[in-house]
């Protein structure tokens, strides 16, 4: 994919029509991270993951269409997708941390009840 974009950029020979590879990579990484964090199973995180995926898909369509305006629009969409993906990761992790904390509090209460 990356090679294709690089190839397209070289062929195009114009800096302004070059696809936003860096933004594509970072948005892809944040979406992957959100999926690995289990964002799909956490409602709020799932929402942002969905937004990231939608904007990323839209960006890909624009990039495939080519043209300076489309590349700029794609770059902005990918910037949004990255921010959504990062938020999805944080929300998924936050949910895990909340469950772990609740478990720890429950553990000590159980222990105290058992030993009293």
């Amino acid at each position, binding site marked *: 994919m990356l090679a294709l974009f690089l190839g397209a950029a070289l062929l195009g020979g114009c800096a302004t029509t070059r696809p936003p590879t860096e933004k594509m990579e970072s948005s892809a990484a944040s979406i992957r991270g959100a999926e690995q964090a289990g964002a799909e199973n956490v409602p709020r995180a799932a929402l*942002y993951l969905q937004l990231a995926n939608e904007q990323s898909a839209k960006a890909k369509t624009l990039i495939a269409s080519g043209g300076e305006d489309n590349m*700029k629009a794609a770059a*902005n*969409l990918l*910037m*949004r997708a*990255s*921010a*959504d993906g*990062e*938020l999805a990761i*944080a*929300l998924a*992790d*936050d949910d895990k*941390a*909340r469950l*772990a*904390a609740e*478990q*720890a*509090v429950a*553990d*000590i209460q159980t*222990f*105290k009840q058992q*030993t009293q």
Partner: protein
Amino acid sequence: MTNRILIAGVLATLGFAACASSPSRELLDARSAYAHASAGPAAQAVPADLHIARVSLDKAEDAFHSDASNQRDLAYVAERKAELAEVLADRAGHTETQADAEARLGKAKDANHLQTKEELERTKSNLASSEQNAANSEKRADTADTHAAEADKRAAESDRKMKAMQLELAKWAAVKEEPRGVVITLSGSVLFASDKAALLPEAKTRLGQVTAALLETKERHLDVQGYTDSQGKDAYNVDLSQRRADAVRMYLVSQGYPPDLIVAHGAGKSLPVADNATAEGRANNRRVEIVIQPASGVTMK
């Protein structure tokens, strides 16, 4: 001309309006999100992330003021960054809660472990002392057994000596086992001269043998009883029999028998063992009986 000026004016106004247009919904959301985040725990918990949100919002504000084409995108990102800072602060709070609960659990477990250990030590100690008590009880029981065995042994020894004594006495005195005890009957004519209460030399020799045997078991109570025949006055006979019994008692005591274990009394003509009508019967009635009372107290010890 005026129309052109008017149109230019309208265009200029539109252009100005475009530059100073009201902020986008995205920017309003971003401002609101940042204000919310910076008022919450993020400032304390995740200052670096809140700073990133601030920088992001500043970029969006700049883009808005310069009317950049991507101002809405930058505002969108700024809102997400502010939300991100809040979520990270929330997460830090959960992590802290978890760490705190785990630390308390660790302490509680340590305390409980210590308590359990102390209880175990106490139980062990109690067990040890009860074992010691059991051992002591056993020891006491053993000692009691030993005492009982010794007492039995002494009783058996006492009985054995008694049997030996009876055999020895049987050679010259009548020995009978009666409910009141072993009765040694000594003939009055062997012990005393007529009407006398002093022991004859011959009597002392014989009594010496009796005494030697009695001293073997000087735990028994002795009842020395003097008897006469039916001749003579009763009072005199009682007195004589008393003095004779006393003489025997005194002799036994002089030979080492414990005085507090011997009583003596004169029974006169009472309880005859033979017919007073004949000389032989009267001779048999004149007698001293030494009653060796049953060794009730010995085995009871």
